[in-house]
């Protein structure tokens, strides 16, 4: 499970049930989304289904996430990927496979490669700036996604080093979950889309349990995410976020 997806999902969590009575500012909405994206620590088990040209594959992983900087993921299934681990510490990323017993640093050009054949790159996983940090936002209107009324946010990158220079997000007015997102190129061309499915509530937080991530330029079924279980504010031993733990 990629960290980006985690951010998206978690970022989509709603904060409190107390919805804003009047239209909040774009910054406020973004803040609400962001505040839920990085809420201390969380442990989750998730699934990712990748639709290949010939067959589809589902990968299950367990992730331990502490704030913005630290994440540890262990793949559980399929058997081939079992035991593969990834560690993110700040802007560094390692991957470990039990077959090779090596912790390989993923850096530079490698970061732009796809993770496990999905529509996401390692770089997408590494993106740890909050939406608020990365984008200027403006409320462009409201629109329903399915039966949920949403704010439509237009996000414009604050600096040139953001992968997607602009985005359009549909944020649930009540739950502050991103239900739909479009990511655009500098030219304004649509590159990626995200659509959330079932939204549920865990430990008082709203979050989407399903989402589909698509490369808009490419044909194919995209990459599907599902959260199987999630625990917030669970204690995570600090030792987990070390390279030594990759080998365990």
């Amino acid at each position, binding site marked *: 499970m990629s960290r980006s997806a985690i951010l998206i999902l978690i970022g989509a969590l709603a904060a409190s049930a107390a919805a804003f009575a009047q239209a909040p500012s774009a910054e406020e909405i973004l803040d609400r989304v962001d505040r839920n994206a990085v809420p201390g620590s969380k442990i989750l088990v998730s699934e990712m289904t*990748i639709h*290949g*040209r*010939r*067959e589809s*594959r589902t*990968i299950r992983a367990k992730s331990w996430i502490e704030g913005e900087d630290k994440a540890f993921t262990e793949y559980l299934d399929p058997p*081939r*990927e079992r035991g*593969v681990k990834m560690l993110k510490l700040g802007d560094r990323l390692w*991957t470990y*496979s039990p*077959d*090779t*017993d*090596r*912790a*390989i*640093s993923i*850096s530079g050009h*490698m970061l732009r490669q796809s*993770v*496990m*054949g999905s529509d996401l790159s390692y770089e997408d996983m590494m993106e740890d700036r909050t939406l608020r940090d990365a984008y200027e936002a403006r409320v462009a209107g409201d629109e329903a996604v399915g039966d949920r009324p949403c704010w439509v946010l237009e996000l414009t990158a604050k600096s040139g080093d953001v992968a997607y220079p602009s985005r359009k997000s549909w944020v649930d007015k009540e739950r502050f979950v991103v239900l739909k997102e479009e990511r655009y190129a500098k030219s304004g061309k649509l590159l990626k889309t995200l659509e959330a499915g079932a939204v549920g509530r865990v430990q008082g937080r709203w979050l989407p349990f399903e989402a589909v991530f698509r490369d808009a330029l490419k044909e194919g079924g995209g990459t599907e995410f599902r959260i199987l279980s999630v625990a917030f504010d669970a204690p995570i031993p600090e030792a987990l976020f070390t390279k030594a733990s990759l080998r365990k």
Partner: protein
Amino acid sequence: MIRFLLKGVLRDRGRSLFPFLVAAAGTFLTVAFYGYFLGMMNNMIRSNANLRHGHLKVMTRAYARDAAQVPNDLALTGVGALMAELDREFPNMDWVARISFGGLLDVPDEEGETRIQAPVAGLAVDIRTAGSPEPGLFGLQKILVRGRLPRAPGELLMGDELALKLGLAVGDEATLIGSSMAGGLAMANFTVAGTIRFGIRAMDKTGLIADLADVRRALDMDDAAGEVLGLFKDGIYRQERIEAAALAFNDRYAGRKDEDLPVMQTLAEQPGMDILFVWIRAATPAIIFIFLLAMSLVMWNAGLVGTLRRYGEFGLRLAIGEAKGRVYRAMLAEALMVGFIGSAAGTVLGLGLSWYLQVHGIDVSSMLKNFAFPMETVLRSRITPFSFVIGFIPGLLASLIGTAIAGRAIYKRQTARLFKELES
């Protein structure tokens, strides 16, 4: 009469040995030349066949369409059964499975941390199975620069330049990071068994050759392969048979839509190969013609010279009352005999040499120090049914014609003058 002449030919070596030798040598050279020339043409095909395309290549339809991108997610599956079937159907061909793959090679430092990484273009071939034709097809032993061929699981060969760039020595370990057939992350450790020189810069700088079994395990491609190549066991490309085979194979799946079905392609269909074949087809008859013409002239000359030597004898024979026509015919019969025996001997010798060169070849790599293209350093010949007659017929005819022309003197000249030649 024939027996009488034959006795003369065999016993009077003074007059028949040299024409015989010339006919034999000329025929021998022709047969050898023809065989060598065909071998040379085949050699141009050979490296392409051995290294990349085989004589026949089987892929899935989907893979074939995007072959340039080596889409291993569209690779052939059930390769074992497919190869067994191909083996049965084409017993005179070797069938080999190969996987081309891209990836990243990660070289650790002493602590096992990433020291350096480089993109690699790998080729998985069956190196370790005893009797596999692959080491021979690649001439692995010959292109080896350092170390040895892989013997144990997890050993690979890499371009010498790549090894130098990565600071890898024989025996060092590195991790290959690639994509599994299903698209997942694939990582596997390999040990450098040896380094090789392909002679093609791109391959020397990025290429590696690993054992098929290892790569299948690493990329989760059990019983799968990007390509299955078929090559005639003797290395000779036979266009018609290959085309027929591909046609028959593809016919079986005609009318079906499944993109995972196999498709068989010939070497000539591979990108860029068409022009080579056109060249070979055009050049072969032209060069053979030139050579045959030269050879015929030499034989003709030999017949002429051989007959000139015997003017004295003819004078004597005419003087003692032999009819001109009889002398002339006897002479032609002799020439035919000498030409026959000589051409036969030359053909046998030429075929012998060609056969040797077809089977063994001559390795001239020692003559080519610092030469970068190791595949091309074995000179080989090739025998076709045509080899049996290409020298023989012209050899026979040319000596006959030479004799016939020189022999006309019998009619033209005075007996006395011919007789005088006897004295000289």
